[in-house]
């Protein structure tokens, strides 16, 4: 029963592929969730029962894992994701001012998406601490980010 709802969902193939690849691995839930999110862009809530069934765990456990980790999303993120580092090393090089600038430029607060589909997320360290401030756009790392460089990169996203 729980499986049938997911089988009707639009993301069925991605979910079934992820299950086939990862459900049998020890501790397979994390790789499985990553695989679904990579394919779909988020983890559709309606697939929870199918994941729970495949791993023989409760829906509550799957829900618990998804909500525990900052990375997992249950709704689409937007066309692009900008992660701005707010940790100490970046703060020492002006990350707070950059954060203010970024929110004003995008017209979106942290954890929100701009009108043109750019999601702004905080991140606590990208490991680029000698080239602070740092940020990541769609998985690509940028260092020594000034407000001017931020604007240039955002403009490129908007024109893409």
């Amino acid at each position: 029963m729980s499986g049938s709802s997911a089988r009707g969902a639009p993301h069925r193939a991605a979910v079934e592929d992820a299950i086939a690849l990862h459900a049998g691995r020890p501790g397979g839930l994390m790789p499985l969730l990553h695989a679904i999110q990579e394919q779909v862009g988020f983890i559709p809530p309606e697939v929870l029962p199918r994941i729970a069934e495949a791993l023989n765990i409760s829906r509550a456990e799957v829900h618990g894992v998804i909500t525990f980790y900052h990375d997992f999303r249950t709704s689409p993120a937007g066309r692009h994701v900008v992660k701005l580092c707010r940790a100490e090393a970046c703060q020492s090089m002006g990350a707070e001012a950059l954060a203010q600038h970024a929110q004003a430029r995008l017209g979106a607060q942290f954890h929100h998406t701009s009108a043109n589909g750019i999601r702004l997320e905080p991140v606590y360290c990208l490991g680029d601490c000698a080239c602070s401030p740092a940020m990541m756009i769609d998985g690509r790392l940028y260092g020594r980010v000034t407000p001017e460089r931020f604007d240039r990169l955002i403009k490129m996203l908007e024109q893409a």
Partner: protein
Amino acid sequence: MSVTVYVPRDAAALSVGAQEVAQEIARAAAARNTDIRVVRNGSRGLLWLEPLVEVDTPAGRIAYGPVAPEDVPGLFQTNFLSGGAHGRLLGFTENIPYLKRQERLTFARMGLTDPLSIVEYAAHGGWRGLRNALALSGGEIVETVVQSGLRGRGGAAFPAGIKWRTVLNATGQPKYVVCNADEGDSGTFSDRMIMEGDPFVLIEGMTISALAVGANQGYVYLRSEYPDAERAFEAALATASQADYLGENILGSGHSFHLELRRGAGAYICGEETAMLESLEGKRGMVRFKPPLPAIEGLFGKPTVINNVITFASVPIILDKGAQFYADYGMGRSRGTLPFQLAGNIKHGGLVEKAFGITLRELLYDYGGGSASGRPIRAVQVGGPLGAYLPESQFDTPLDYEAFAAIGGMLGHGGVVAFDDTVDMAHMARYAMEFCAIESCGKCTPCRIGSARGVEVIDRVQRGERREANVELLRDLCDTMLHGSLCALGGMAPYPVLSALNHFPEDFGLSPASRGAGRGMTQVKG
């Protein structure tokens, strides 16, 4: 004749344009019909000079940096392929004082070669430790690591060999080897550099550990914020497996070791070893009670070696050159070297591997060159978000586990973050509590609730509401967190808060005369 040009593939170098520089060099060479070979090496760790381009000349490798794509035509015009003079010329790489004065053991190969070339790895001393280990019993490997004095480089500094011995002697089966690559501390990037810039050394170190304790399966738990490291390490795993350094019957020895990479999902707490085990098991990253120790009941309830990337990466040279060679570096009970990471508001940020015992001041000024802004360095946080803020009066403390514990600090994973005199230490104290609240796993009350209350109390102090009373309350709260938390997150988040209060009281609107008057720092655990 083809000239070799090196442009790093390290994520930090890429973050400031190394990919564009490499492409521009290749394009310009082709346009000039000049035959060059571009090698994407690891970073030398001189990160303020990235992108650092090196040219292999008959006299040695010559460095230029930082190179922007628009510098490339000028480099060709000044004949940089022969080491020609240019505004970005730095001279022989090996003679740059920042690099020359280091003691690189763990990072010995960093930046020399294409990190994904297993041939180059072997040509530069790789696999010698593993070959020696294959001729020893598990107990003999363990004793070598014990004798070297190597302590856990993730932060807790527990003797690695003792931990391995516990796993070796544990009766549970199967046994696991797990590498903690959840390098979440701000100001640290040495794990990332190893995984991108010398990944085979981590594979070799973990394989030696597996031989020592009798494990056939290992995992590397890598944080999701490091996609470049993930790609590099996955490629290295595939290459090592094909070459029989991993998998069944390693090098025909009869030993088997399977190694897998697992990706975290953005939870700082999963750098705590028991939370990491939960995450590897596919669960929420909730901290476990100890005992049982993971060495007895770890991953899936089985005996498990858990060490940090740098710990494992330091093992091959110990097995290669012997325990005494490694133990000859360092001071007191801190043996060997630590790859320090100079970060934040520092002129010459980068990786500095030195024997324990160098002072913070030497690191900040002789290597770091002072602040990036040119203003005085006012505070330094050593050891990540849970490390104490140190004022100038403590800069002469030697970087040694015990010396730092004695001043209420910790070396942690070797991250050093500098702040100039524009820093507001009350703001940084508030941030420490806020970070703890965001990242708390929620299992224990002092951490989950205490950190949220801590933010509120600091807000009141900053607003000047009943300031003295609220500072007293904050100290009480820190005391509860220090002594009542389940793990180091809640248990050490008070370090940056109390050190800020004790050393920079004026930032909290308190009289500077109260400097250092606080309690609750030096008597606590080290």
